[in-house]
C-alpha cells in the first residue's frame, strides 16, 4: 500500500469533499471528487488499498460523513494522522473505517512510500527504509464496531 502524505495540520472536511458535491451521497459518486480542494491530482494518484497520512486535527469542520465515504470510495483503506477532529473520527469508527492516531508520522514518511500496516500489532512500517512506527491499539468499542462493519450493524445485531 502506498502512503499519500500531507504534512499539513487541520485538513478539513470541506477540502476532503467540497459542499458543491453534497447533493450526492453515494461512495462511487463522491469518490471522483475526494480531496479536490486540497490536491486535484489525488484521485488520479490513489489506488485501492492506499492510505492517507496527515498532521494534527484531520477532518475538522463540517460533520459531513461524505468525507469518509469519498475517501473510502476512492479506495483509501485508512487515514493515519497525528490526531483527528472528533466528528470525523466518530464517523470513521461508525463506518468501520480505519482512523489511526500515530503521533508525528507525517513528518517522517515521504509521500509515495510503500508502507505496511499491522492494525492488530499496532505497527506501521515504512518499507522504503524498514523503519517501524508503533501506534496504540484501537479502543475496544471501536474495534468491536470495526469488526461488525459499523454502528448500524452493531445495533441491528443487538
Amino acid at each position: 500500500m502506498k502512503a499519500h502524505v500531507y504534512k499539513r495540520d487541520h485538513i478539513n472536511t470541506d477540502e476532503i469533499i467540497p459542499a458543491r458535491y453534497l447533493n450526492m451521497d453515494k461512495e462511487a459518486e463522491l469518490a471522483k471528487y475526494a480531496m479536490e480542494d486540497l490536491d486535484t491530482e489525488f484521485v488520479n494518484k490513489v489506488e485501492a488499498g492506499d492510505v492517507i497520512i496527515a498532521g494534527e486535527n484531520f477532518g475538522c469542520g463540517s460533520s459531513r460523513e461524505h468525507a469518509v465515504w469519498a475517501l473510502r470510495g476512492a479506495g483509501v483503506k485508512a487515514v493515519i494522522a497525528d490526531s483527528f477532529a472528533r466528528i470525523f473520527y466518530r464517523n470513521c469508527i461508525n463506518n468501520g473505517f480505519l482512523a489511526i492516531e500515530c503521533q508525528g508520522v507525517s513528518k517522517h514518511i515521504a509521500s509515495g512510500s510503500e508502507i505496511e500496516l499491522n492494525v492488530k500489532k499496532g505497527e506501521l512500517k515504512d518499507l522504503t527504509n524498514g523503519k517501524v512506527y508503533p501506534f496504540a491499539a484501537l479502543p475496544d468499542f471501536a474495534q468491536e464496531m470495526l469488526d461488525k462493519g459499523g454502528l448500524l450493524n452493531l445495533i441491528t445485531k443487538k
Partner: protein
Amino acid sequence: MGQTITEKILARHAGRDSVKPGELVNAKLDLIMCHDVTTTPAIDMLKEHGINKVFDPEKIVIMPDHFVPNKDIKSAEMIRKIRLWADEMGIETFYELGNHGVCHALLPEQGHVIPGMTLVGADSHTCTHGALGAFSTGIGSTDLAAALATGELWFKVPPTILFNVSGTLKDGVYAKDIILEIIRRIGVDGARYKAMEFKGEVINALSIEARMTITNMAIEAGAKSGIIAADEKTLAYLKDRSEGEFEILHSDEDAEYEQVINIDVSDLEPMVAFPHLPDNGRSVSDIKEKIKIDQAYIGSCTNGRIEDLRVAAEYFKGRKVAKGTRCIVIPATTDIWKQANKEGLLDIFMEAGATVSSPTCGACLGGHMGIIAGGEKCISTTNRNFVGRMGSPDSEVYLASPATVAASAVNGYISDPRKDLGE
C-alpha cells in the same frame, strides 16, 4: 467531587448519579435535529438495515436549510425523499419552505431547546444550543440513523475547559469578537474533544442571541460542545416559546475543570479572522493594508439573527454599499425576515444597495446563493474561512462581526466599524 453542568446532564441521561471525563456512556436523547444534507443518507441506512420506524416521532425535528430553496434537481430529490420519509414515520415537525430557516437559528427560536436537555443534530454547529444550558453536539449520518432508531447514542464524557469572561466590551465590539479572540488564543484544535463552558460578567450581560454566537463557534476550536448555564435571560427567552418542563443546572463550586481560562475583554477590539482558519484572527486596528473585498455576507447560524441585522442596518442607514462590492443579507429564519421587514431593516439594506434573500445556509458553505469566484475576497459573518468554503478554492474568506462586515461593505475594504464611514 463536584460536577460540571455537562457531566450532570450526561449523567442524568445515562441513568447515573455522576460521570467522569473519559467514561463512555450511553445517553438518552431528548431531541434530534435533521437537515437536508446529512439526513438522506441516514434514511437509506435505516432502510438498508430493515429499520422501519423511529424511536419517537415527537422528538424528531426536520428543518431543510442547506440547499433550500432547492438549488438543483439533485437537492430537490434529496429533500423530497426526506419529506416522504417523514410522512411515513409520522414525524410532524417539518419546517417547510415558508416556515423555514437555518436550523441553529430556527430550533431555539421555535422553542425546541430547553435547559438540561440532550440534543444532537447532524450538523457540526449543533453546539450552538448550549447557549440555553443544554448538552448539544453535532454528529454524522450514521450516528443520526442510530439516534433516530434507538433514541440514544454513545458519548465519551468530555473534560471541560471553563472560560471566565470578565471586563466591559467597548462600543463596536460584539460576541463574535469574543469568540474569534478565544479561538485565536487556543487554536482550531484547542478544545478538541472537550466541552467549552462560558461564564462571567460579560457572558451574563450578553443577550441569548449573542450567547448563541459564542457557543455556535465552539466547534471551530474542535469542541464537542459549548455551554452556558441558564439564567433569568434564558427564562425570559423561553417564556413564550417553550412549554417544556426543565430544571436549571449549574456546575458545582468544586467541579473539576481540565483548565480555567480567564479572559478580560475590556481591551478587545473588533476581530477579523484571516484566511484560511478561524484561529487566524487579528485586531482590526492591526490591519494596516487595504484589503479590498468583492463580497460582504451577513447571515448564517452564527450571525443572522434579528439583533445582528439591527446592528448591520445602523451602518447602512443613509449610506451605500461601495461600488465594486456586492452585499448579501440573509435573515436566518422566516420569523427574523418578517421582524426585520416590520422594523424597516430590509428597506435600509436594499436602499443601500445590498440584496436580501430567503433564509438558507447557502453561501456560507459554498452551496448556492452567493458563491465567490477564484481571486475574490469575501468578508462574512459566518463561522468558517477554510479553503474554498464559500466557493472557488482560489477565493478568500474573512470572518468578522455584523458591524465589521457592514462597515467593510460600505467602504469596499476591510474596515474598523468604530471609525467614521463615508456616504
